[in-house]
């Protein structure tokens, strides 16, 4: 058993006693609020109790033993609404059948990191959720001890039942819930041993499954409210343009149209955080009774745009001040390419240097060099950006899909001129996130429109709006060089990477630490095209580039690509080069060994072309083997085998689902997707021109294996995504005889056929 300070329980307790004027009733008063409960979900059909007892801010217990567990984090498809409550339920020792999950609203005093970002939902709440469950379990024991007049230490709690062997007494949690809710929160509680977990590590089905397959209103775009109006926005047609004027006369007379007005999202002196950013600060809002009417009016609206000048936007990112340059002009993809190549041919900013790379390259018997690139990508969550807002004189209710409610709250408050405590942000289930909903400008836009209309409104972006004013994945470029000596040893390694507008480089990641002479440089190109985090930022390009290059080096050296990587990890583990190496070489090697075994790497079948890749990000390690077969001379992905080390796996089948999704997503984006620009305008605005992977292009089968260990959980949503691009490129090489350097690979002739 591990003893921990029961901070969660205490915080919940302190909070409530102050609200309740010093009474002894425990728990945070969220459950008593008259807010509408959003997207409530039942694990199965459960009979509801007559009365609920709040134990702490994370849970309440019904008189019949049913437990409601709050899920604090945004649900974007990573399945935290199931896996986070599982963690708590395990420590509470409750039967999962008796658990109901409810989405918590934003509550910064109770929960930490209510963010869907950095693959950190589970890892950042792991301890808190366990503590909340263990605290409640202890309070139930204390309640039983008091009533039965026996020592609490002699009471067992198993699957929702308390028992005392000596006296033969037993009681369900429901029977003790009332008493437990009156107990003083213990100073210290015991956490289970990891070997005692009975829910964590077992596969549990998505708690929203039934609601999803029956089409229940779960998503932001589904929100309805009496008297609610629909709003659309019209934004400039190109990056580098801004609003000049508009003529709303005709449009205002169209059926169902209530109002047409321009809105400026932030003032120049607004203290902007990176997550508040928007591509277009001034837009035109069209508000009306129904979506179709608003969409028609939007098309008919006459708007004049003009060129924007150079702008510099000051913003903060995790406390660091930065200045983001948006140079004037309408940009083009071919010029982007030229600029990246030009900067790549010059010296970059040195980010890491080990040994004497210049000399080593000079002395090398052979130098291998390759360049890689990728285009901008739009996030394209299936559910486009939207938000519901109901702003009155002294209160703002906001409801919808956001990955960062906590970070958006101050922006809403400031823009509306309301104090923070008058802003109430609630989260719906979200039709995908992938980083796009970290940038919540649409929530502020909805709030501003509702304030102006004095009515509840739902702002909805069309697919075209969504795709043409994104926070895109940047376009990246990288050149790798490797130097071999006469004995065929890898003696020097050089990576130079840059992008628009940021560099994808991680200078301290593998293979840094494994090669004596190492140089990492980077560069950036300013742009007025807005970019942001996209599933596994920067890794989503650099992993594939690096892993393709290592494949090429292994081939030149005549080595098996897995063996070659393992040798490098051995070196990094036993005698690491340099400082601050940002990975654990043994765990890295572990996933490669596991994937080698599970994919039967050594006995590949004829007609099957295989590529391997391994990568570390978000504190997790992933290795993948991808198999291609040729059908009518066209490469088809037959199978992917994945090995993952993300510590303890809370919900294995759900984690496997994320692995499968990451793999399909990675193959899709590397192979098919890209956003290109002409005169500042994206050339793809909908799925007719923007290609996403489809059913027939997905791997026929995917197998995922997890490394079994006792390490606290690490990231799972992002890590499976980046490496697969390398495995794909390497398998394509085997299948076609051509290296694939530039994404999307489909633009290369060998695949097009």
């Amino acid at each position, binding site marked *: 058993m591990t003893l921990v300070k029961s901070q969660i329980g205490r915080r919940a307790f302190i909070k409530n006693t102050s609200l309740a004027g010093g009474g002894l009733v425990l728990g945070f008063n969220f459950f008593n609020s008259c807010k509408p409960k959003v997207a409530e979900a039942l694990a199965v059909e459960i009979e509801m109790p007559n009365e609920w007892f709040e134990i702490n801010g994370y849970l309440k217990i019904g008189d019949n033993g049913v437990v409601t567990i709050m899920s604090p984090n945004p649900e974007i498809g990573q399945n935290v609404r199931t896996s986070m409550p599982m963690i708590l339920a395990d420590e509470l020792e409750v039967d999962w059948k008796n658990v109901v999950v409810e989405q918590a609203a934003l509550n910064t005093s109770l929960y930490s990191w209510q963010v869907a970002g950095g693959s950190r939902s589970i890892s950042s709440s792991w301890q808190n959720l366990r503590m909340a469950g263990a605290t409640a379990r202890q309070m139930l024991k204390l309640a039983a001890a008091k009533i039965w007049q026996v020592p609490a230490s002699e009471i067992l709690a198993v699957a929702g039942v308390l028992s005392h062997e000596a006296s033969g007494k037993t009681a369900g949690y429901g029977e003790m819930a009332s008493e437990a809710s009156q107990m003083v929160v213990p100073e210290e509680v015991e956490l289970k041993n990891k070997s005692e977990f009975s829910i964590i590590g077992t596969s549990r089905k998505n708690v929203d499954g039934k609601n999803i397959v*029956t*089409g229940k209103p779960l998503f932001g775009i589904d929100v309805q409210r009496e008297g609610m109006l629909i709003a659309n926005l019209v934004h400039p047609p190109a990056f580098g343009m801004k609003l000049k004027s508009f003529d709303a006369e005709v449009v205002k007379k169209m059926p169902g149209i209530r109002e047409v007005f321009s809105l400026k999202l932030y003032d120049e002196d607004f203290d902007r955080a990176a997550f508040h950013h928007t591509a277009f600060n001034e837009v035109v809002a069209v508000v009306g009774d129904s979506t179709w009417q608003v969409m028609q009016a939007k098309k008919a609206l006459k708007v004049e745009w003009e060129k924007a000048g150079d702008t510099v936007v000051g913003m903060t990112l995790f406390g660091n001040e930065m200045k983001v340059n948006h140079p004037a002009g309408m940009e083009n993809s071919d010029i982007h390419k030229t600029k990246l190549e030009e900067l790549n041919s010059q010296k970059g900013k040195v980010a890491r240097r080990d040994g004497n790379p210049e000399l080593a390259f000079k002395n090398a018997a052979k130098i291998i060099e390759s360049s890689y690139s990728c285009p901008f990508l739009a996030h394209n969550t299936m559910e*486009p950006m939207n938000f519901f807002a109901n702003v009155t004189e002294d209160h703002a209710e906001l409801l919808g899909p956001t990955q960062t409610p906590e970070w958006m709250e101050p922006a809403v408050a400031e823009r509306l001129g309301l104090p923070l405590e008058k802003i109430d942000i609630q989260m719906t289930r979200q039709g995908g996130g992938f980083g796009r909903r970290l940038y919540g400008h649409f929530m502020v836009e909805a709030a501003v429109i509702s304030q102006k209309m004095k009515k509840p409104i739902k702002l909805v972006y069309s697919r075209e709006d969504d795709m043409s004013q994104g926070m895109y994945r940047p376009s990246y470029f990288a050149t790798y060089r490797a130097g071999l000596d006469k004995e065929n040893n890898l003696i020097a390694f050089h990576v130079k990477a840059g992008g628009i507008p940021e560099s994808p480089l991680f200078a301290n990641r593998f293979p840094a630490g494994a090669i004596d002479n190492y140089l990492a440089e980077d560069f950036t190109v300013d742009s007025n095209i807005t970019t942001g985090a996209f599933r596994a930022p920067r890794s989503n390009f650099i992993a594939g580039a690096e892993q393709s290059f290592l494949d090429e080096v292994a081939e030149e050296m005549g080595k098996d690509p897995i063996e070659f990587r393992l040798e490098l990890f051995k070196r990094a583990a036993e005698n690491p080069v340099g400082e601050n190496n940002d990975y654990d070489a043994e765990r890295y090697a572990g996933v490669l060994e596991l994937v080698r075994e599970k994919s039967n790497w050594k006995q590949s079948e004829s007609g099957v072309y295989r590529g391997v890749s391994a990568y570390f990000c978000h504190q997790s390690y992933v290795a993948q083997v991808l198999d291609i077969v040729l059908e009518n001379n066209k490469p088809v992905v037959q199978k992917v085998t994945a090995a993952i080390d993300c510590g303890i796996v809370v919900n294995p089948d759900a984690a496997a*689902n994320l692995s499968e999704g990451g793999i399909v997503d990675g193959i899709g984006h590397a192979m098919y997707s890209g956003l290109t620009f002409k005169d500042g305008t994206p050339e793809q605005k909908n799925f007719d021109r923007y290609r996403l992977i489809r059913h027939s292009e997905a791997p026929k089968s995917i197998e995922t294996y997890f490394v079994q260990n006792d390490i606290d959980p690490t990231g799972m949503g992002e890590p499976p995504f980046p490496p697969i691009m390398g495995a794909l490129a390497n398998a394509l090489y085997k299948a076609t005889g051509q290296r694939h350097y530039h994404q999307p690979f489909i633009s290369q002739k060998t695949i097009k056929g």
Partner: protein
Amino acid sequence: MANFNLKINGKIQEIDVDPTTPMLWVLRDHLKLVGTKYGCGIAQCGACTIHLGDDAVRSCQLPVSSVGEQEITTIEGLSENGDHPVQKAWLEVDVYQCGYCQAGQIMNASAFLKKTPNPTEAEIDTAMNGNICRCGTYTRIKKAIKTAAQTENI
């Protein structure tokens, strides 16, 4: 504006809308049947799939004026208790991630299986290719379709 009497999920629904309004928005805005989803509005993603008679159609491309007497089924009406074999298979396989595309996937798969009760892998690919899943649950969708195909009454 014009009046329409539509047969939706076995009930007659009377509405007064612009005749060009696509069924997608009639369902979502006017009838509050929001299970049918908007994804692209141009027949490219399949999120808005409903049944018109026995056929799976894109409701974003179906003006309300063209429906007439034909019966419409949406995800809300696919079964009374969420126990259509396709829904059951989806639950068994635990297909979804974000879940947004799944109503469209299920509506397309159920219409397809009705006509092709024992599909081959290639037939599934062809039938389902118009339904995008941005989360990449394609392998699970295929598994669920095969699972459903094995149940009787499909």
